[in-house]
């Protein structure tokens, strides 16, 4: 109770979120009297980000910086503009489409947001879209990454549930596409309300020139995809491979990137990624302290006592996971909750484990964009120079689209005939 009050009060005062999480962890330890945890606290803070899965964050941030500095992003967006009918808010749809394509290769929301924030947002702004709105669409598009296969979140869930990864991947396709479809609806409404500019129709010759100029730029994403599909690189390593390609194209072909620009790009990426990673470390620390107080298991027992209906159980579960997602990253939150909640879901309520996994992953993914702790939200804000809370407010229609998807999934999961 003391810890919860401290948490809310410190956030309201405007204490940096990372330190709110550290102080709340300390308060929880004091409250439980588990002083022995203090001895492990520094190494848990370090260990919270000591995972391979997070490497995507700094590497894709760097890739985004280099693609921006080398003029690659600008040409890719121009290419999309040249190929597109003059639709209102055309670049917003390009952004979403690019996110769908990236989501089918990558499995990490923050990886996508970091690249797209540097690539798409400046171009959209140049084309007359408000910056905050552009950043919002970019951040929302990132939500597709862990739902459309492949997905790190689903792989982690598969390991806990002992399910074939392929089954979970297949189950992610429909919800992912439904979400993308609902995002199209949201963007269409935003385009009308904000009177977003269409892509200006250009003469044929001009279009041809743009397309040819973009061909070297196109190599960069193609090299990333190619290196993954040929088994040359993991999706994480693909970021490093295509960053190398971006340097070569930016320096050798377009001559917009100079050797002396690279330290600056490295520094900006290190600052942005470093800060978000530290936030993740602090959130992980809090998760560890909460686990020690056996909160996940107690929650599982509480849910079980409250209801006998699978639907009510899943609805309550959704509420709980949404709350958890507010302060935790998806992968640690899955590790925290799935081991205790999955057996209850399958054994007590007869819920299909695959359906349970998809509901859990969609739900917790949303947390990446919800304040007060959302790595995706802060990455988008930091890289586009917008305010996190402003972004979060503008994201509400997209959140509603995800909640509609989630509700559909929940009803389907609770109904044995549907799965």
């Amino acid at each position, binding site marked *: 109770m003391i810890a919860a009050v401290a948490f809310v009060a410190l956030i309201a005062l405007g204490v940096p979120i990372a330190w709110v999480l550290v*102080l709340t962890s300390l308060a929880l330890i004091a409250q439980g009297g588990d002083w022995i945890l203090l001895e492990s606290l520094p190494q848990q803070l370090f260990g919270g980000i000591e995972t391979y899965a997070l490497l995507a964050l700094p590497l894709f941030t760097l890739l985004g910086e280099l693609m921006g500095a080398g003029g690659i992003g600008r040409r890719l967006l121009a290419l999309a503009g040249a190929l597109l009918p003059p639709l209102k808010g055309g670049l917003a749809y390009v952004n979403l489409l690019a996110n769908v394509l990236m989501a089918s290769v990558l499995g990490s929301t923050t990886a996508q947001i970091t690249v797209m924030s540097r690539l798409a947002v400046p171009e959209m702004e140049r084309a007359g879209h408000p910056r905050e709105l552009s950043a919002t669409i970019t951040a929302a598009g990132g939500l597709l990454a862990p739902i459309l296969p492949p997905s790190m979140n689903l792989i982690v869930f598969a390991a806990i549930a002992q399910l074939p990864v392929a089954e979970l991947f297949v189950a992610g396709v429909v919800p992912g596409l439904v979400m993308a479809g609902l995002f199209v609806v949201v963007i269409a409404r935003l385009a009308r309300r904000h009177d977003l500019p269409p892509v200006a129709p250009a003469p044929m010759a001009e279009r041809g020139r743009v397309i040819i100029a973009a061909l070297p730029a196109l190599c960069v994403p193609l090299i990333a995809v190619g290196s993954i599909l040929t088994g040359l690189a993991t999706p994480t390593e693909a970021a490093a491979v295509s960053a190398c390609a971006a340097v070569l194209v930016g320096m050798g072909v377009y001559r917009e990137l100079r050797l002396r620009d690279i330290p600056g790009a490295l520094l900006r990426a290190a600052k942005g990624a470093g800060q978000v990673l530290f936030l993740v470390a602090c959130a992980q620390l809090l998760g560890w302290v909460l686990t020690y107080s056996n909160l996940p298991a107690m929650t599982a027992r509480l849910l079980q006592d409250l209801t006998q209906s699978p639907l009510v159980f899943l609805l309550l579960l959704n509420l709980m996971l949404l709350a958890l997602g507010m302060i935790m990253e998806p992968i640690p939150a899955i590790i925290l909750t799935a081991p205790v909640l999955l057996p209850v879901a399958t054994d007590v309520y007869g819920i299909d484990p695959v359906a349970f996994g998809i509901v859990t992953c969609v739900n917790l993914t949303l947390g990446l964009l919800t304040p007060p702790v959302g790595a995706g939200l802060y990455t988008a804000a930091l890289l586009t120079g917008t305010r996190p809370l402003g972004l979060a407010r503008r994201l509400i229609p997209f959140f509603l689209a995800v909640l509609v998807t989630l509700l559909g999934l929940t009803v389907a999961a609770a109904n044995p005939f549907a799965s």
Partner: protein
Amino acid sequence: MAAHSRQKFFAFALRSFMSPLNLRKAARRGRRRGKTRSEMLEHGSELPVLARMDRAILRLEGAVAALLLGALALLMLANVGLRAFGRPLLWGDELAVYLMVWTAFLGASIAIATRMQVAVDLLAERLGARGRDRLALLVDAVVLAALLILSWLVWRWFDPVGLLRTGSGAALAAETFNFIYQNPTLTLGLPKTLFWAVLPVFCLCAAFHALAALCDDIARLSAGRRT
């Protein structure tokens, strides 16, 4: 350096370092000329020693963080290439993760120094200029307090005094159940302490930044009171 001038130098350094007065003066000077702190940071000559050191640390951190991230990208690239030729770096992934953790802690310290930390600023928005300065002081004090607690925990964990007394990591572990110097890495063949060392580095640098920010807040508040 002659003894006399050395003495004078130390006295000056001590004065400038210890007393927030100089900082206040600098802030007033800056404010009179309509400068913000970050603008003042660009014209270092006007700044007292504390702020100048703060800025030097910041620059060093930035350089190291950029270098580490560059090394991380090159390492991943090298691993892809070497694996294609059937000689993967067995320690590549582990080192990459440690490079990332170092970058993260340096980035966090830089964020404190540049006042770029992520926070919910709804309350500050509702306050006037003076209230905002007071709130900034309170928030920076909380951050410094949290950092001091963390520093204390890191100090206890590294237990340099205990290590000196017992003479070795193994002896320290046997006597106090503190195994910090006994933990290996998985593939690098190096003691884990080498990488954990980022924690004391972070605590030192970040606490320094937090202290400088706090002095800056005090200077701004008192400069505001005089005018």
